[in-house]
């Protein structure tokens, strides 16, 4: 797995944009550190924000598989996010209308992922044969169908009131009481209760692990023959077909893979936020993720990282603006305005994104020969 080497390049090897981004990231981290030390931001809240950014990053990496690798315009991100979140929430929450007993969240994750894979195939069968712009409209429509189902099938999903009392991901670990089936040697694991900061830290740790795992898998896949076929489909589908590739099957694989990553993000969100409602499946979430991907650079995983953080900066940062300055209107339209402006500006001035894929598409060994000369 030599493709996994997360080597840090020297400043001199970066191009101008990369230097600017790196500088901005360092400056922003310093700013956050100062804010925490000065007591402006609670460490618990900072960890929550970072976990949320990690969640958007997972969603962006999922969409990057669809749009960045294969060129599928999928506008149903919110639906797969919701399937992951509802999949785990319905099984694990004590407030769930479906399950009377709380199953451990790890099982909920599994069900969310299975559900997303299943729905991805069901949505993919009719839509993946469609032209690019038709796929966009059809997937948005089907995502709305899923949202309407969750909103209206109250006896299954609790409808608009949403599902509350979702346990933390670590349940029943650290829950304060040891279950009967656990050997008594493990009691301390169960009976220890965590304070808010510890919980926030564990959540953050979880999302970091998820991100590293997904990133590693995607990086490996993207550089594999499978990834090369996906890139060929993206740039010229006819060419891929002429080369004898079953483009429909490759698109379906990409669609399922990306959707599963989105469901993982949704399941993580359910256990981070501890509450999920149909409003979380609004199309706006899909477009947040789209902004993250096109801002970072379509097809670029590190771009998705940057985009995910910028989106959380806008969504959560606008809350601060509201707290600090007395602006004469609600924050919701300001957020919408910034997102809209960002989309237009990116598409107008830098449609390839801030960090478009460059070297990350190429095996290091492929260029090594030239460097040796």
């Amino acid at each position, binding site marked *: 797995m030599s493709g996994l080497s997360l080597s840090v390049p020297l400043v001199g090897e970066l191009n101008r944009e990369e230097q600017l981004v790196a500088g901005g990231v360092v400056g922003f981290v310093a700013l956050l550190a100062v804010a925490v030390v000065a007591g402006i931001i609670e460490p618990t809240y900072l960890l929550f924000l970072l976990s949320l950014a990690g969640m958007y990053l997972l969603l962006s990496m999922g969409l990057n598989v669809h749009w960045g690798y294969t060129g599928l*315009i999928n506008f149903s991100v919110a639906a797969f996010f919701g399937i992951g979140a509802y999949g785990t929430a319905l099984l694990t929450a004590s407030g769930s209308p479906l399950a009377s007993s709380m199953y451990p969240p790890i099982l909920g994750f599994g069900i969310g992922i299975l559900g997303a894979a299943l729905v991805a195939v069901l949505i993919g069968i009719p839509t993946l044969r469609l032209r690019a712009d*038709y796929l966009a*409209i*059809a997937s948005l429509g*089907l995502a709305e169908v899923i949202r*309407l*189902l969750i909103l209206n099938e109250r006896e299954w999903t609790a409808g608009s009131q949403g599902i509350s009392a979702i346990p933390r991901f670590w349940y029943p670990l650290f829950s304060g009481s040891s279950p009967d089936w656990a050997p008594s040697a493990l009691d301390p694991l169960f009976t220890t209760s965590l304070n808010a900061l510890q919980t926030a830290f564990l959540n953050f740790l979880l999302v970091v692990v998820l991100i590293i795992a997904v990133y590693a898998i995607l990086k490996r896949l993207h550089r594999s023959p499978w990834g090369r076929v996906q890139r060929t489909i993206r740039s010229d589908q006819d060419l891929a077909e002429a080369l004898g590739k079953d483009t429909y099957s490759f698109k379906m694989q990409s669609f399922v893979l990306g959707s599963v990553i989105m469901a993982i993000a949704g399941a993580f969100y359910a256990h981070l936020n501890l509450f999920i409602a149909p409003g979380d499946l609004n199309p706006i979430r899909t477009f947040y993720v789209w902004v993250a991907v096109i801002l970072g650079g379509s097809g670029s995983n590190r771009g998705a990282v940057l985009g995910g953080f910028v989106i959380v900066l806008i969504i959560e940062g606008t809350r601060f603006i509201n707290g600090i300055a007395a602006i004469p209107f609600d924050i919701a*339209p300001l957020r*919408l305005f910034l997102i809209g402006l960002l*989309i237009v500006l990116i598409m107008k001035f830098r449609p390839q994104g801030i960090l478009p894929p460059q070297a990350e598409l190429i095996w290091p060994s492929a260029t090594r020969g030239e460097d040796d000369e």
Partner: protein
Amino acid sequence: MSLLLQLIANGIVYSGIIVLASVGLSLVYSIADFANFAHGDTMAVGAYGAFATIGVLTSMGLTATIWGFPVAFFVALLVGMAVAAVVAVLTHKIVYEPMDVGSIGMLITSIGIAFLYRSVIQMRFGAIMQSFGVQRFGPIPELQAALGIAVTRRDLLIVAVSLTLVVGLHLLLQYTTLGRKMRATADNRSLAKVSGIRTGRVLVSMWVIGAALAAAGGVFIGLNANIYPRMGFDILLLVFAAVILGGIGSVYGAMLGGFVIGMIHELTPLFQTRLGIPIGTEYAPAIAFLLMVGILLWRPQGILGGSNT
């Protein structure tokens, strides 16, 4: 029987609104060549333009009425159409025209434009539901006696104005020089250009017509129920369904598609009463979306197909 008649009457009214929106979306699709996700929010721009105008005119003391409707409402309808047209042309000139990103890039850009429209509306008017404050009359007694259905003056007005606008567009497209140029441009932009048609001007007229019709649709949504910033986006997918159903790029297809989608949307209760399938009206949009996907699979070029504008 009267339930069926009633639902058909409702369907005709709702169709009027969808048709107005569909025609504009179809025009943009065929001439500017991208799926304009800002079209729904253009409807909202028109509706709020009219809303502001009614407020101003009423405060100026314009209280005269025509057939029970305030004159201010009709003026506001025209102003709303004009506002939406100006906003659309400005957007075209400032954003779309100088761009060179292909139809998918344009589609994504239009999402950004949609958010900009909606956020500005929300900043100015708030997120709450509002109404035009036009006096409500009950069902027209003669129609209720004759057919047993409740049809209000608002319903008749919406249908009459929608019909007028659609027939007007038909005459424009078929019998005027501008219409001929528009059809030529939609059919083949490069060929139209080398034939000496100033396609830039055609594009501007297209935005004016499309946005004005969308605005009328938006105003009628407001007249029928309420206005709120997300109103246009909430109806956008139905409009896309109508346009796809009729065949993207075909204006007459869009009219037909709009009629069908509007009808299906309002006839949803029949699933329950006639077929015994327990699907409530809350699934009316879902049924339209599923129909759209079905049409895309069965006949991607739509019912009327091609760009025979």
